């Protein structure tokens, strides 16, 4: 594989031409015969209860077909995951429609009419009697004694820990208020650290760490809420045929979104066909679709007609959710030379109304990774607020961790007189740096490939840090410009997903994938590995994605920066399986041992030349042989979802599919690649190791202007660039592009905000 033909090479992804010519179809671009349109009635209050609905005037309007209320939306049911684990439904989780809206702009009911204007007019004619309820939009204010709560039951989530082997219990709500002393502390500008409801963690001896320290700082910082604002709002369209639901929606993942839809509608996966070939941005907020996606499905069932729901930009502000703000207080101890000896971190997350997130905990784990404190503790809680639902957003938690920590580190450096780059180098992780708490067996998670120190050196040289430092903070006219430095990381990786491809007697390789397409191109990039291993040129690869009626295998959620990692491994595993089958077929027909044969250049042939056959011929033979060769027999470890795909492969031939279930099932190829100088190898190498539960330092991005922090806002494209042969573990914004970035930011400040 030393001279790879596909991996690490530039190529045109199969979706690009459709995109540039306007032929790519996003959810809103589909039409169906007799399609109705939906508009939503949104709550005008941050917290209220619907006492009664009078829809008679609306229903009497010509063109109005149906009204859907919260009572008609099936509640979320308990589910069994693909791996067989029980997922308990949280009765307090977000629903498509609600009778107790918890934020302003939450959908209360929906109208289907022959066109949107009619539906909107019908909404205007619906009379609702509301009972207004107390509300709270500030996580910290709700902790003041006597302040109102966001939920009737309370203002803070508690998360009971699960006994070993038991499913995670459903989070509960409690009413929690500060004492008078804590209020005083808060008024003095420090977040009181006394109360925590999340399972806390710590390592090392904090007390000793602080004792050892020459400098102790105690600071409170707050990160902002940021709305996702995907350019494509979460539109969906649905219709029913013969008891099957066909749903077009905007989602980051394909096959995994089926499971969400099934859970929200209480259906069987077999009865859902989900189409999403293109997604106009998700940034974490459309991980496996959005719960409101099912509204057209329910209305389509009710009316017997296809229904489309276009979500307007205004509606998207609420429904689309936001990254949660994290209020953090950090007590940090350092020695004279800048080494962090202790970090006591406490966070309050603005959680929105539905369910506790992990952003506070994750933030602290990244503080632990990036700054490697000798001892560290974290405590925290998620406060409930009547604000739009909080969702994952690019580098969820990690980003907030950086925003909390970097100004603090900068302040420490100034106090100690240590250089800003230097203090980060002193504390940077390297090699298999451990971070976060120990697990039940006493093992701490570890990083697998850290080059932060090297990145800092390289960046400092590229940006002429010493020169810039001298100019930092100097007044020029009415402006003061500062320079700063920040580091960033995120973890990625998951295992247990299937690859699937078929080689047919026409000599082509048909690859199926359940990966979503939100523009990161991982749905296609990962498959290059399988094609490379099978010796098939890319022109002979037919890739199917984005339509679950076409039997897609079980793929990972396209989120959390994991897809390229997880699904490259699945592609590797499935190609390994394919090679094995080809070798066996060749040995059966041409004699010798399977090991005597190699697969390359569209042939399976004897090592070192000699007898062989084309893949097209081998495919024909596979059909005759049947059994495992043509996909009639499925490996036991493949997922329930993928088994369905057997139907595709029946008429096919060499059908290979395999679950990449364990971290060790795919390493040989990847390891060999890692010895290569190609950067794809670097990616793969770190990916392999991160599968053992570790964390890869994904990128170190720098932003040198105005002391602001630039973190990798586009984690996915980092993967893609890697794939196309660029550096990534040291990804640094070159001065030229940094200038360009700031130029465009200047031009479009709104872009920088979203």
């Amino acid at each position: 594989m030393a001279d790879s033909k596909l991996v690490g090479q530039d190529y045109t992804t199969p979706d690009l031409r459709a995109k540039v010519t306007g032929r790519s179809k996003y959810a809103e671009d589909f039409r169906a015969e007799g399609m109705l349109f939906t508009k939503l009635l949104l709550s005008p209050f941050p917290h209220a209860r619907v006492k009664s609905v009078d829809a008679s005037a609306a229903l009497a309007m010509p063109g109005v077909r149906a009204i859907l209320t919260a009572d008609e939306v099936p509640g979320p049911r308990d589910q069994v995951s693909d791996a067989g684990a029980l997922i308990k439904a949280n009765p307090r989780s977000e629903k498509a429609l609600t009778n107790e809206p918890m934020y302003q702009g939450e959908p209360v009911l929906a109208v289907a009419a022959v066109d949107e204007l009619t539906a909107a007019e019908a909404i205007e004619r619906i009379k609702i009697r509301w009972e207004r309820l107390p509300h709270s939009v500030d996580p910290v204010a709700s902790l003041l004694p006597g302040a109102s709560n966001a939920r009737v039951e309370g203002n803070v989530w508690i998360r009971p820990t699960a006994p070993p082997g038991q499913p995670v219990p459903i989070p509960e709500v409690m009413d929690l208020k500060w004492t008078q002393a804590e209020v005083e502390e808060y008024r003095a500008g420090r977040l009181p650290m006394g109360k925590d409801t999340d399972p806390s963690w710590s390592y090392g001896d904090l007390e000793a760490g602080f004792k050892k320290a020459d400098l102790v700082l105690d600071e409170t910082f707050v990160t902002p809420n940021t709305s996702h604002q995907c350019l494509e709002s979460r539109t969906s369209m649905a219709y029913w045929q013969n008891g099957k639901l066909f749903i077009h929606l905007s989602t980051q993942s394909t096959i995994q979104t089926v499971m969400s839809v099934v859970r929200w509608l209480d259906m069987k996966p077999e009865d859902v066909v989900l189409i999403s070939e293109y997604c106009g941005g998700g940034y974490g907020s459309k991980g496996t679709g959005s719960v409101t996606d099912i509204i057209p499905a329910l209305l389509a069932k009710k009316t017997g007609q296809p229904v489309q729901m276009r979500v307007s930009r205004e509606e998207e502000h609420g429904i689309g959710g936001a990254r949660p703000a994290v209020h953090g207080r950090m007590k940090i101890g350092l020695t004279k030379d800048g080494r962090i000896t202790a970090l006591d971190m406490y966070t309050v997350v603005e959680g929105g109304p539905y369910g506790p997130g992990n952003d506070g905990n994750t933030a602290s784990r990244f503080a632990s990774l990036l700054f490697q404190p000798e001892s560290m503790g974290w405590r925290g809680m998620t406060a409930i607020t009547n604000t739009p639902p909080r969702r994952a957003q690019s580098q969820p938690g990690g980003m907030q961790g950086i925003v909390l920590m970097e100004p603090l580190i900068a302040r420490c450096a100034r106090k100690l007189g240590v250089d800003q780059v230097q203090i980060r180098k002193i504390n940077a992780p390297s090699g298999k740096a451990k971070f976060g708490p120990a697990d039940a067996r006493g093992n701490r998670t570890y990083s697998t490939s850290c080059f932060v120190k090297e990145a800092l050196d390289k960046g400092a040289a590229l940006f002429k840090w010493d020169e810039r430092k001298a100019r930092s903070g100097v007044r020029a006219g009415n402006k003061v410009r500062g320079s700063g430095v920040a580091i960033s990381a995120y973890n990625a990786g998951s295992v247990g997903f299937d690859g699937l491809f078929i080689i047919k007697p026409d000599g082509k390789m048909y690859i199926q994938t359940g990966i979503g397409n939100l523009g990161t191109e991982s749905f296609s990039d990962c498959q290059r590995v399988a094609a490379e291993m099978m010796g098939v040129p890319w022109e002979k690869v037919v890739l199917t994605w984005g339509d679950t009626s076409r039997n897609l295998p079980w793929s990972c959620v396209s989120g959390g920066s994991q897809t390229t990692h997880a699904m490259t491994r699945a592609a590797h595993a499935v190609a390994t399986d394919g090679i094995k089958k080809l070798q066996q077929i060749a040995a059966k027909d041409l004699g010798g041992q399977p090991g005597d044969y190699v697969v390359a250049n569209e042939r399976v042939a004897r090592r070192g030349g000699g007898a062989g056959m084309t893949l097209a011929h081998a495919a024909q033979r596979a059909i005759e042989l049947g059994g495992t060769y043509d996909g009639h027999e499925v490996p036991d470890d493949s997922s329930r979802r993928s088994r369905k795909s057997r139907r595709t492969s029946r008429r096919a031939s060499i059908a290979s599919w395999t679950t990449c279930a364990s971290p060790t099932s795919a390493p040989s190829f990847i390891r060999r690649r890692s010895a290569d100088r190609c950067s794809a190898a670097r990616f793969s190498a770190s990916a392999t190791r991160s599968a053992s539960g570790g964390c890869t330092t994904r990128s170190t991005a720098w932003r040198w202007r105005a002391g602001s922090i630039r973190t990798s806002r586009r984690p996915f494209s980092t993967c893609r660039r890697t794939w196309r042969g660029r550096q990534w573990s040291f990804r640094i914004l070159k001065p030229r592009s940094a200038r360009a970035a700031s130029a465009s930011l200047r031009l479009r400040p709104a872009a920088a905000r979203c």
Partner: protein
Amino acid sequence: MTFQEQIPLEPGNKSRRTFIKMVIASGAAVSASAYLFRGSTLIGQGSLPGAVERLMSLNVNGQMRRVDVMKQETLAMTLRYKLGLTGTKLGCDRSECGACTVLIDDVPHYSCSVLTHTVRGKSIQTIEGLERPDGTLHPVQQAIIDEQGFQCAFCMSGFVMSAVGFLKTNPNPTREELAHGISGNLCRCADYDKILRSMMRGAAYMQKTTT
């Protein structure tokens, strides 16, 4: 059964005064109508304001298209819903994002904020009209493919139309000029660096083909 058959028809022939009263009564809906899709299924009922459509001819991508258009209908709606040209996207429907940009007589416009009846007699070009019938892409499109520009590409058609329009007025821009020229478009994936690189390459391709 057609919709007309399903819908109970109300007595037509409303007086002008009743019509105006109705418009006032449903003021919010009428003012919102610019960005709501109104189908042609209620023609002739006269029961709802804004349902009146007029047949007009539109010159889209070099073809004359006959289409029924309401007074308050936006060009984006006509293109997407009546002419099936869904390459033009709606990101905000309120002149903020530029996803809906099309060329009207070679000048980029936000089609979400242009009323269709105002473009009578003008020539409209959308993303679908850039590719030549023989499949040759416009240089800007080709440049995007060569640079693998854009991420989710929801903003792409707007950017392409803006750039194509801008390059007609300034065929040889600097990167800064180009950035300014397409500054009316937003990319939420924040792919600006690659977008500018693609567009600069597109400009270079165009220079090559013209000289």
